């Protein structure tokens, strides 16, 4: 009897234990608090919006912006080694010496492929979300797909210009078994694919986003340019057509952009006069027949620097087409500072995370003969003493931050003082407060703006023309000249425009091309364009001579290409990263970079 009682008790106990076990499946399900899992994601439009923002945000990473600069500008004739780069940034230094090793961190492309895969994922998931969320309409889905296709194409466009052939795919990789080990696809194939992708989605893209004040805290009117618009796609296409050699298409998309800008001017600024005009609004339209381009550069003597502020300082200027918006403040950590720019170009801040320890200058600096005094007329690019772009791009004065530092894209504001019309050379105020960008360092990174497109259009005209002297060619060259001249003229302060009009007579197409290249470099210096321009011309020629003749050999001391000075087209592109090759058996190193490696060391005991 007593035993029975105990057995019952133990049975009950066992039951309790078993019960505990039965509910264990639930016990092991915990909802995480700091991440969202796929179980409750991809349900509504907001999820898509947040992922889209994530794409832009990852384009703001230091890795990404650095590569825009390093791939697009660094190897060009504009850039020289800056402060402490030899000791503090080995990879950058090696790249500056043209010693491109597969171990160099700038051969890593992960930051671009991260964006590509995010775009792929959103393109895959947008229709799925649309099915769950009726407020996410079909046209929205299309617009999302267009936007993501544009970002993906832009990333591929960067990659092929840097590496020539790269792995190309459009499928999203979300789980282990979707991981791909792709070989590289060819430059031409990828270019063709991304052009046709963009042409396909162009019509779906949003032309203008609704403007809300919240969108741009402390920024000016045009937040439209912070996301891909239809015109952003046009600008990309225009650029790509120049690489694929489709001149008419390039001209037509450029015209589309210019027409839209003219319409915008009419809508937003024609009514603004006098004191009602916002300080950063464009002043006036260019005279006919180019009434589609607004003058941005301020033309009064006192403060020609306002235009600088509008384009490069505050950002989101009227003439911008696509730029990444940085908006950092120490009180709001959710925004991003453009660390990449600060480190490479110099931030006016000795903060180590914003640049080399030597305060004020970046790891990169300007080629000496671009810094040289305009009065001496020895400057390689800026021939006109009053070319404001010189003062906007470069810090020439000898001041505590050193000489000849890059200012475009990093300085917040310049004061151009002195009487621009007088014999005095306007100089840039060197008060440190003008450069102290502090921790709130947030210059935007401009990818396309109107003058870029105008010069691309001019290039298309010139390429369309032939060396033969005939009426068609003359007309094409005129059209090109007018565009280049317009860009040139608006940058020269008003008092001196008349001098600028005495541009040399450009009789031949070859001279015109040189003039265009110089103008492009003056206008877009340090904006990540110059090296790609050189490579584009070289590809068109099928030989690297144009690079060799432009990049001074003095720049490349001790580097791999230096001895022979860009001996082949292959030398214009970067090697694949060593680590990448290790994990991707289908990707093989380019021939010219093959023998550098430490292959085949066996160190058995």
């Amino acid at each position: 009897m007593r035993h029975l009682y105990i057995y019952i008790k133990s049975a009950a106990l066992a039951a309790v234990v078993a019960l505990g076990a039965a509910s264990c499946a639930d016990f092991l399900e915990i909802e995480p608090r700091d991440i969202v899992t796929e179980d409750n994601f991809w349900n509504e439009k907001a999820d898509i919006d947040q992922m889209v923002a994530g794409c832009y945000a990852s384009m703001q990473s230091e890795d990404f912006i650095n590569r825009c600069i390093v791939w697009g500008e660094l190897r060009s004739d504009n850039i020289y080694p800056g402060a402490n780069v030899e000791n503090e940034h080995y990879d950058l230094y090696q790249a500056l010496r043209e010693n491109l090793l597969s171990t160099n961190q700038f051969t890593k492309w992960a930051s671009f492929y991260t964006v590509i895969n995010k775009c792929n994922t959103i393109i895959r998931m947008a229709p799925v979300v649309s099915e769950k969320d009726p407020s996410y309409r079909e046209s929205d889905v299309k617009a999302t797909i267009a936007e993501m296709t544009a970002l993906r194409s832009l990333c591929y466009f960067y990659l092929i210009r840097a590496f020539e052939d790269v792995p190309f795919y459009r499928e999203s990789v979300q789980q282990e078994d979707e991981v791909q080990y792709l070989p590289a696809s060819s430059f031409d194939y990828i270019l063709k694919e991304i052009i046709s992708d963009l042409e396909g989605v162009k019509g779906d893209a949003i032309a203008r986003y609704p403007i809300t004040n919240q969108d741009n805290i402390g920024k000016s009117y045009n937040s439209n340019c912070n996301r891909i618009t239809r015109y952003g796609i046009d600008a990309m296409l225009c650029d790509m057509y120049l690489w694929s050699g489709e001149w008419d298409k390039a001209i037509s998309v450029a015209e589309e952009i210019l027409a839209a800008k003219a319409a915008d001017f009419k809508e937003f600024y024609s009514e603004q006069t006098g004191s009602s005009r916002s300080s950063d609004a464009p002043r006036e339209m260019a005279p006919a027949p180019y009434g589609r381009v607004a003058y941005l550069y301020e033309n009064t003597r006192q403060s020609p620097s306002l235009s600088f502020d509008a384009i490069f300082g505050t950002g989101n200027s009227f003439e911008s087409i696509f730029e990444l918006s940085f908006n950092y403040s120490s009180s709001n950590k959710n925004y991003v500072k453009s660390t990449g720019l600060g480190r490479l170009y110099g931030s006016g801040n000795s903060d180590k995370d914003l640049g080399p320890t030597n305060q004020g200058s970046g790891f990169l600096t300007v080629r000496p003969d671009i810094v040289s005094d305009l009065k001496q007329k020895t400057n390689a690019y800026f021939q006109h003493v009053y070319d404001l772009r010189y003062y906007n791009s470069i810090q020439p004065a000898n001041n505590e931050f050193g000489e000849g530092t890059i200012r475009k894209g990093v300085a917040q504001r310049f004061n151009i003082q002195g009487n621009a019309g007088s014999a005095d050379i306007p100089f840039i105020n060197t008060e440190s407060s003008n450069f102290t960008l502090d921790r709130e360092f947030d210059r935007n990174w401009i990818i396309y703006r109107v003058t870029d497109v105008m010069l691309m259009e001019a290039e298309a005209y010139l390429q369309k023309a032939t060396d033969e002297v005939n009426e068609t060619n003359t007309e094409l060259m005129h059209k090109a000249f007018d565009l280049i001249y317009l860009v040139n003229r608006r940058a020269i302060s008003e008092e001196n425009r008349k001098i600028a009009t005495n541009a040399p007579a450009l009789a031949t197409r070859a001279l015109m091309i040189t003039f265009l290249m110089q103008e492009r470099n003056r206008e877009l210096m340090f904006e990540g364009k110059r090296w790609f321009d050189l490579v584009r011309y070289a590809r068109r020629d099928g030989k690297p001579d144009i690079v060799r003749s432009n990049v001074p050999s003095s720049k490349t001391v001790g580097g791999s290409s230096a001895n022979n000075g860009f001996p082949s087209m292959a030398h214009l592109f970067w090697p694949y990263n060593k680590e990448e090759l290790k994990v991707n058996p289908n990707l093989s190193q380019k021939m010219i970079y093959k023998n550098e490696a430490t292959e085949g060391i066996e160190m058995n005991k």
Partner: protein
Amino acid sequence: MKTLRYYITLCLMLVSSLAMAQISRISGTVSDDLDVLPGASVAEVDASNRVVNATVTDMNGNFVLPIKSAKNQLRVSFMGYKTQMLPINKTTYKITMQDATKTMTEVQVTAKKKMKTSGLAIPEREVSFSAQGISAKEFEGLGITSVDEALQGRIAGLDIVMNSGDLGSGTSMRLRGASTVSTLTSNEPLIVVNGNVWNVDLSDFDVATANDEKFAQLLNVNTEDIDDIKVLKDAAATAIWGSQGANGVIEITTKRGSRGAPKVTYSLKLTMTHQPDGIKLLNGDHYTMLLKESYFNPEQNTYVGQVRELNYDESDSEFLMFNKNTDWVDLVKQNGLRQNHYISISGGDEKTLFRISGGYDHETGTIIEQKLNRFSTRMALDYYVNDRIKIISNFALTYTKNNRNYDGLLGIAYKKMPNLSPYRYEYDQYGNEYNTGEYYIVPRYAFTDHGQLTAAQSNNFNDQRDLHNPLASAKYAKNDQTTYDITPELELEYKLLGLDDNSHQLRYNGRVVMNVYNDYTDKSFPSSLVTNNYWDTGSAYSYSRKNLAFTTTHTLTFQPHFKNEDHYLLAMGRFQLVSGSSSSQSTDVYRLPDRLQSVTSGGFVSGMSSGFNEWRSLYYTFSTHYSYKSRYSADFSMRVDATTKFGPNNRWGYFPALSGRWNIIDEPWMKWARDKVKVSMFSVSPGWGLVGNPPGADYLYLNSFSQGQRYLNQVSMNPSGLKLTDLKWENIYTWNLGVDLKFFDDRLMFRLDLYRRTTKDMLMANAGIPTSNGWSGLNYKNVGDMKNEGWEFQINGERLLKKGKFSADVYVNFANNRNVITKMDPLVLENLNIDWTENNRSVLQRVQLNNPFGSIYGFRYKGVYQYNYDTARDIARADIKAGTDQLQKNIDERGWTYPIVLNADGTYVRDSHGDPIQMRFAYKTDKGTGYAFKGGDAIYEDINHDGNINQLDIVYLGNSLPKLTGGFGFTLHYDRWQLRANFNYRLDYDILNMARLDMESMISNNNQSEAVNYRWRKEGDVTSIPRAMFGNGTNYNTLISDRFVEDGSFLRLNYLQLNYSFDPKLLKKWHMSTLNLYASANNLFCLTKYSGVDPEIGYGGYGVTTDNSQTPRSKSYTVGITIGF
């Protein structure tokens, strides 16, 4: 309602009527044969011996006792008499007690000595797995702060290495080698205190650096509270810990109360610690001379060395601060003092056992301004409700406050320029210099004589300026850590069936344990010490973390009773649930005005973060032990783990283990050995088991998304992990064979263990995939297999030599482990092998199949080129003219060295002009010229004689895994004196002495070792130290080479202790029960050829042991006293 009332009334009536029918009170007398017994105990006890009511007899032996229930029994007991149990069946008793002495018959006690682990309590001679224990008595009175120090050198196969000599920096432990490549999976053994795992989340931290935390866990157990430590080594032993015990288990049992009058013990230990001398550094004069040379050499230009810091220029405003000879290391070192106070009270009666203890430690470090305060208390209470039910309650609390240094002072002291003064000096009115007593902080700017603002230090010396003045930093900067560790525990034990070995026993044990661990860090750095920029002022940081975990355990243990007592069976089933959560937050502020030290006092917030983590797991354990005649034993256990780290597919891990033991000595045919050779034990015990490891992260099996930076005021989400579809448990299979041999009633004992541990599907974090997939890698991947094989041998002898009052105990143990990687995903292997970069100090990391971890590769160092190339060329040219062979003679006969290429036979190679060819570094035909070696540069052996020092000249230089580790020791007893000594050793392993490399590299402004005074300075110098060359890229003198690879073998006298305990008879007069006095010395000497301070250095990445000039382990001297009342 009405009916309810009716029922209640009915019940009440029934109860009262029943009660009336029963006996409610009894009375009687108790006497023995002669007389009445006053003071005898009379109690009503229930079926399980629980006392319901009790009384004692009065002067006349009478008693009256109210009775609860007549079903109970009456128990009458009195000291010296046999206890009687009587049924309650009458109201008056006349009880006659019988003298116990008369009834006593011989009783044979057959209880077996049992090994208590948190699994089954198995008789020691039937234990079939590999475990080794150490009793607290062995380390009583040593000047140690935590258990690991006591274990060092005591357990075969447990390799314990001090991380550093800093307060609270802990040790790293490896039981039988590392089991995995993953840096995220810890290789440290599991620590179990009283059967409980410390469930504190460390996921904020990289486990590889979380030694502080591990240490905290050990530190939170006061060594005085420890009763016993067991180290479970093989999988058969640890399998009941499943995935937690993959790296072995250290089980700690704390002391509990014992029956008898309360005993009070107080002990005091005073320990003096000091640091051994490190590398001798240059003084100010030698330093400035070195730097001048170092600046001159690369540029061959005296101008570069003309900097104010080195010039001793009296007109300089800071001259007085740059003309000293400061021994920074001496300034930051001090003698540390540690006081350990400890008091405990223990006692108990039939029903209750208790032990309460409290300890207070105060410690000052061997580096200035380091201070540690610790208060710990532990309470253990056992309450026997009756024979069946026992309630156990434990409570432990440890509070630690560690005032650490903000900066690594010793590190700074080793680097800081010795001509700099720690204090500001000024001229008095007579022009004599005097010390203002104010700490000198090198300002960013100073005024020159012309009143201009100028940099106070040359740009080149910015790095020196940024090394904070260590004295000022120690005094004014704050870095405090406070931790609270609270572990309350409640346990219920219920014997469901029989009460003794003669019946079936079934025991239920339920336990709830709570872990509370909170820690707080407060740091601040005052603006007055900031040197590196001129607008950032003081900063402060505060961090807090809360941890809370509940562990619920249900255990059923069954021990059937067989009629044939040759059979013996034990079985246990256990179910355990763990749930816990932790949250943390931190705030960083900067631009604080001076003297404000708190994050709340204003300033700009530069960083704020918070974290939250939650985890749950669930374990089933089944374990059984069977033995026949105690001669053949077999054990089987199975553990099932479920964790949130895996998705539903792989969530459960199954970890079986099987082991057996054959006590050969019990065989009848071994009688001769028992009788003639006095063998008391000879057994073999093979075992096999499987344990596993889960990955260190949750939700790997799902696509997850986390918030990223905003873009245009839009919150962004980013994919945060590539969904892992086929991640598996990492499994570790272990074979173990143990052989026990004991003589003379176990007084002399030998044990040999052979083992093989195979790790399959090793987990590795961040396994690479092509980044063109848009992901940087897989969070985790099962990448390959690894094998650890080895043996352990131990000898223990108790009271071996015995002569009169003298006796001696000795013990020795040896362990050897061989580690081999047997399989590896080829892509991962490629990826692990980081390329050699042509830089000084860059370590070539190689992980190779069929090779162990921890191999060091590099160049062979052959000294320093005596002469420049030009000198060699000139001789060669002269030779051609004169037809002589002078250059070759110089090389062959005089052994002079030139930076020229030599053939394998030692002849130099000429180019087409007849000139010797200059030796080059990393020359590539298509890419530049490579560095050409010059006089004073390091000579590396040109293994392939191609005139080019490159990766093809890299050879294997050594391995960091020791061939033999272990320890030995002895205890000598003489009367009431005791002398104990313990040694530990590690043999045949190599250390990469990066500390020395940095101290002899002469490429920066950092102070260097005195050895660089022997550097090459001019042509012809014969030395092993190359010339001084400022700048890392200017020279290749400190490539990893055998110059910096040293054998780290050592033998250390871990401790030596002398103990005297007073005669209890004598003490009785002073109303004391014990009085012990002792003195001990720790780390008295260390025999080694290693040139660094201490060869005991922890494991580095992929097993390479690297000396990064950690604070060396201090030497300490302790005196102590223990008093018991």
